[in-house]
């Protein structure tokens, strides 16, 4: 008879996200996965709207990665209108985006994963939380939050608004750079650069300490898989370029333009979740990873001094390509370094002062565009009619693409920390940690204040034999 262990974080939303672990009679793992009850209807509400509203409206889908939607939508509209966006506009979009990456990764590294790294997976949940990490290391926390604020300020100045940017439009960007704004942005970048010599060794130190304490993370939590990332001019790129698919060994299997995504990325339904899984289709179906680690596996060069030096360190410790789930944190750190350096390059590129907008008219047809969201490749695909109205929309988000790998990571965490162990807290921590490495965006909208009971139901033949609750 099979036994099911169900971890039910529920977040604030009833039935929002659960983890199940199915055991065989002998206590070995049968399978495990994250169950997602996705928000319904976003693609539907876009239908009937004017296409040029897409960068504004889709930015509001998510409070965590609005700029990723803002830029993917703008790229899709440029494609639909058949215009070549002026180089200065692409540079300014990218500058906004670098602010967004700094902002998003700082939170993810320090606030979300920091507690696991600082306190260790076995620490009492009463201290293994974000308040605990701040108490344990207030100076590092202050620097991390300052870095986040600097990212947000860059995003806000170029994007016009902090949380939901508005300046990127079909055909370019409405933001106008002047010497005074340049000076302010340069000061922010300089300040961020100055924080790096403190932040980088501190985060690496925490990560290495965590690996020392939990060798399973290094030895067992390895998920070899295909990867997908964007490349441009022989370096990693986030808002333009070709998509490159690599296999487990890091060999390039395919490079393609985003408008061909539907040939290679195929969605499939799983019977235990509302979220559709995406596989890469090329001589069979392949599970693949997107996000910071996939990007650097696909293109092992950033083209800036510090980021490339840090990537060399990353590869030395984690391999190249790297499939260590826990190294997602390190990958975010390398990207943060790069984002600061790249922002510096952009603001000092003479091309940034050029024309920033060309006129657009929509012909009837398709608009496809993408961005590399902090969590991975984000694709917007619209059908636009001759009046410039959206008739159909398809959004492929990072979490869907990472879904298969997230589930495999949950299985591995269950294998090393759960199966055969009686420590309920370790079970919860390990499974949560493996999910957190991918920072899944479960519905992009669910933040209502409230209680988050964490519940595990262990069932045997349909009968619940044990319930573990985080709040007990």
């Amino acid at each position: 008879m099979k036994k099911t262990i169900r971890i039910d974080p529920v977040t604030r939303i009833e039935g929002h996200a659960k983890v199940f672990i199915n055991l065989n009679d002998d206590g070995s793992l049968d399978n495990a996965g994250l169950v997602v009850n996705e928000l319904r209807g976003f693609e539907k509400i876009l239908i009937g709207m004017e296409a040029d509203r897409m960068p504004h409206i889709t930015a509001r889908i998510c409070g965590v990665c609005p700029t990723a939607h803002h830029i993917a939508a703008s790229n899709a509209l440029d494609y639909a209108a058949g215009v070549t966006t002026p180089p200065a506009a692409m540079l300014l979009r990218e500058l906004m985006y670098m602010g967004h990456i700094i902002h998003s990764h700082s939170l993810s590294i320090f606030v979300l994963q920091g507690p696991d790294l600082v306190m260790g997976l076995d620490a009492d949940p009463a201290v293994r939380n974000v308040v605990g990490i701040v108490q344990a290391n207030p100076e590092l926390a202050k620097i991390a939050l300052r870095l986040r604020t600097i990212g947000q300020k860059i995003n806000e100045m170029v994007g016009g608004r902090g949380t939901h940017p508005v300046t990127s439009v079909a055909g370019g960007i409405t933001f106008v750079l002047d010497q005074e704004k340049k000076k302010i942005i340069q000061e922010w970048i300089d300040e961020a650069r100055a924080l790096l010599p403190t932040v980088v060794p501190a985060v690496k130190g925490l990560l290495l300490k965590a690996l020392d304490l939990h060798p399973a993370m290094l030895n067992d939590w390895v998920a070899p898989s295909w990867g997908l990332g964007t490349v441009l001019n022989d370096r990693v790129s986030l808002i333009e370029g070709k998509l490159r698919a690599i296999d487990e060994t890091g060999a390039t299997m395919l490079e393609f333009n985003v408008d061909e995504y539907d040939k290679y990325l195929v969605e499939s339904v799983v019977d235990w979740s509302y979220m559709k899984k995406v596989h890469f289709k090329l001589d069979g179906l392949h599970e693949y990873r997107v996000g910071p680690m996939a990007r650097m596996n696909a293109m092992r060069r950033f083209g800036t001094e510090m980021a490339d030096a840090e990537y060399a360190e990353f590869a030395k410790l984690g391999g190249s390509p790297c499939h260590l789930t826990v190294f997602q944190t390190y990958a975010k750190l390398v990207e943060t370094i790069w984002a600061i350096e790249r922002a510096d390059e952009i603001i000092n590129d003479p091309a940034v002062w050029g024309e920033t907008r060309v006129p657009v008219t929509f012909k009837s047809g398709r608009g496809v565009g993408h961005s590399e969201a902090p969590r991975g490749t984000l694709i917007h695909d619209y059908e636009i009619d001759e009046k410039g109205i959206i008739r159909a929309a398809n959004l492929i988000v990072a979490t869907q693409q990472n879904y298969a790998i997230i589930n495999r990571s949950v299985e591995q965490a269950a294998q090393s920390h759960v199966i055969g162990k009686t420590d309920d807290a370790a079970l919860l921590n390990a499974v949560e940690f493996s999910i957190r490495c991918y920072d899944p965006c479960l519905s992009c909208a669910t933040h209502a204040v409230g209680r988050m009971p964490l519940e595990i139901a262990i069932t045997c033949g349909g009968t619940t034999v044990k319930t573990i609750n985080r709040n007990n």
Partner: protein
Amino acid sequence: MSAPDRRTIIVCIGNELIADDAVGFEIFNRLVDCPARLEFCGVGGIDMLPLLEGETDMIVVDAVQFGAEPGTIHVLPWESLPHSSSAISAHGLGLRETIEIGTILYPEKMPQRVTLVGIEGRCFNRTRDYMTAEVQDAIEPAVSTIENILQQGGTI
């Protein structure tokens, strides 16, 4: 309404595209003329901290799920809020944790009083058209509640 004698910041939180989650945005729109400093955040949590400029009072307006009837208006000092358990994604940092962090890192900027005006919601996984009727009906009373708190100089 006379101007409050204390410096108050009101932070409304929510996603205007999501059923009951839009309630914070609706209230924000109705408070535009109030005498306090007014801010809107798509997502709450840690991003509220940089907004603070040493105000003595903060009122946070958000949809909540405390298990009450939809449309219930909760007025709570932050000290009485429940702890969030650990989050699995960046969406999950609670108001209580945010204030605790702020108190450790930026004590000079933290308000003396933080009050949550939480509107109990039920539907968070559908679009704006599906706002629960009781939540819709709670918008105006919640606005009055906030205006009363302002008039009392932040006391509840």
